[in-house]
């Protein structure tokens, strides 16, 4: 127990927690989108994120950046990050789509019980995890340092670096874009319609399979973006990076109300902060225990999450 440290550095911990939480929130959106429409937990989503981190690593390696390369000037950094985001979004989106086609679609046609979906999802996750593990010989991969953290300003005696600010702002921007897409566009209306009542949506001419593909791709793209932010922030990736992050992101989605986009944002940020405070209090090895405990407590006392499950009812 480290109460002294937590009290002294409370705001510092909150800011680092928010940074981590922004990444959780982006991954949580993938869980929430799929759950909102299909009412199933896409267990393999964590590996979609993992594929994204390796896609970013590959991109930067191809572009000639290594672990020891010097920090490039700002314009170039922007270029590198944008290219990595495109590649990672493409890789993650494609992975998510393949998972949907191979592991879920045949089951949907047979009206299989939800546990069977979960088992194929676990199988898919194991396959991706092991395939990447075998390819990289189970060794971690280091990333180039793209941004040197500089303290920009102080927020309630917590130093906020440019890196933290960028991550939080870009995550928020992506979520705003997704929110706009779901609530204001024709495709988004289709997603909400299928979430609300698949049969009526089909009668109104919404192609359900296409909507389902769309949500998997969207979730994959967001996980790809999240993986680039993660790589810039942490600077290293392993083949098992998805597991704990996936559980935390899932806990975040449940905390905010799974199936609810804004809930994923709230849950992600909140979980990031709580986890960081917990890690400060009990020591870093127990970090993941905190997210599990949060998950269990939320499921026990408020199983619909803080904002309720409501992709279908997002806008009436």
């Amino acid at each position, binding site marked *: 127990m480290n109460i002294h440290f937590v009290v002294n550095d409370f705001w510092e911990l909150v800011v680092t927690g928010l940074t981590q939480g922004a990444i959780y929130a982006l991954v949580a959106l993938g869980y929430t989108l799929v759950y909102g429409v299909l009412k*199933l*937990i896409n267990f393999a989503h964590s590996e979609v994120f993992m594929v994204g981190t390796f896609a970013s690593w590959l991109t930067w390696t191809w572009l000639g950046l290594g672990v020891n390369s010097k920090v490039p000037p700002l314009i170039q950094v922007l270029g590198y990050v944008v290219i990595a985001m495109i590649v990672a979004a493409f890789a993650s989106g494609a992975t998510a789509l393949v998972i949907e086609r*191979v*592991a879920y679609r*045949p*089951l*949907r*046609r*047979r*009206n*299989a*019980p*939800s*546990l*069977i979906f*979960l*088992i*194929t999802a*676990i*199988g*898919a*996750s*194991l*396959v991706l*995890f*092991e*395939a990447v593990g*075998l390819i990289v010989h189970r060794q971690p991969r280091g990333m180039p340092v793209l941004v040197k953290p500089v303290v920009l300003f102080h927020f309630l005696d917590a130093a906020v670096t440019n890196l933290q600010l960028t991550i939080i702002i870009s995550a928020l921007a992506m979520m705003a874009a997704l929110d706009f897409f779901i609530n204001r566009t024709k495709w988004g209306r289709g997603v909400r319609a299928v979430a609300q009542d*698949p*049969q009526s949506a*089909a009668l109104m001419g919404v192609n*359900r399979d296409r909507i389902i593909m769309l949500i998997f791709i969207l979730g994959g793209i967001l996980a790809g973006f999240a993986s680039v932010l993660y790589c810039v922030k942490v600077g290293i990736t392993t083949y098992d990076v998805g*597991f*704990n992050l996936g*559980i935390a992101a*899932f806990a975040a989605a*449940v905390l905010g109300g799974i199936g609810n986009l804004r809930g994923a944002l709230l849950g992600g940020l909140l979980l990031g902060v709580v986890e960081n405070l917990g890690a400060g209090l009990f020591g870093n*090895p*127990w970090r*993941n*225990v905190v997210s*599990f405990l949060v*998950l*269990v407590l939320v*499921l*026990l006392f408020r*199983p619909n999450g803080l904002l309720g499950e409501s992709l279908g009812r997002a806008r009436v």
Partner: protein
Amino acid sequence: MTQTNDKPRVGVTDTLRRFDDRRAEAVSGLRQRWSDLPRAWRVGALVALIVVLYALPDLAIPGIRTTETDFTGVLFLVAIYVLIAVGLNVVVGLAGLLDLGYIGFFAVGAYTVAIFGSPNSPVVIKFPWLVCIPIAIALTMISGVLLGWPTLRLRGDYLAIVTLGFGEIIRLIATNSTITNGNRGIAGVPVPPGNWPSFVQTIGIDGEPLGGRALFSINDTRPFYWLALTAVLLCMYGVRRLENSRVGRAWLAVREDEDAAEIMGVPSFRFKLWAFAIGAALGGLSGALFATHNTFFNAESVLLQTSILYVAAVVVGGAGNLLGVTVGAIIISYLPERFREFADYRYLLFGLALIAVMIFRPQGIVPSRRRAVELADRAKEAPTNV
């Protein structure tokens, strides 16, 4: 345009599926013939099979011996996996609860024996093995109830994630807490008492006759295998009896439709909790036996992938069917040892097997008849527009 592309692929899957249908028919035909045999014949055949199983370490059957690892050790491992599969089958196959953290119970059982029995642990009193085993079973049962009490009211898919979390918490405790000693682990786990009867004059490994020496020693794995095999047979018998009892029927009702079961007066929560506790106890027993054989247990043995492997054993083999889960457990534990060159790919291959089995034959390789009917029923109810 797409049709010409799709045709050969569909042809291959069709042939495979037809082949597998024929195999499944043959299996169910054999089982029918088996149950048509006179009772005395069946008992006789079972006794003969059990005798062969006990003698397996000393039989020279060509082709099945593992070349690179001690064959008896592999047999012991297979027996432990079968015990785990039988226990997990109660939870997954009979009660229909997906438990992804079964390794947690395994670890609790193993650590209990290690902590209460080993001289290298912080617990001051050293209990003999015969006392440690009941403690281990009781503690894992309690941990199963503690985990199940708050979580079994949740929907099935949430339960899976929470049990996964439980497994991870146990792993973190094993790695980081002082009482489990992390990766250095606890050595000096006690072994069961007992000596070879003095009339056994067979020559042991070191050239001395076995009679009068300790039965369970580091030099000879066979007694550990016999112990595990005995545990497997007893537990299988017990589970089979439970399955055909009032409890088993209650599990079945809860698995097929919880609301309907509840309306019919089956207290579903209580029976789910029972399934969880019994499953946990069997997991704890297998962990305890594993630690006994190794005389050592550390955090590296607690891996969540292993936990998923257990689920794969049950599901691929055929959830709800004792023969099926036994086959699944043997596949998952024996094949990687027999074909060491593929051992590194085993999670990959079993992951693929999980997807393939769930898509083409969700009832498993050796299905439980009732479950096969359940799944076929659901497929008929599938809405046409999906």
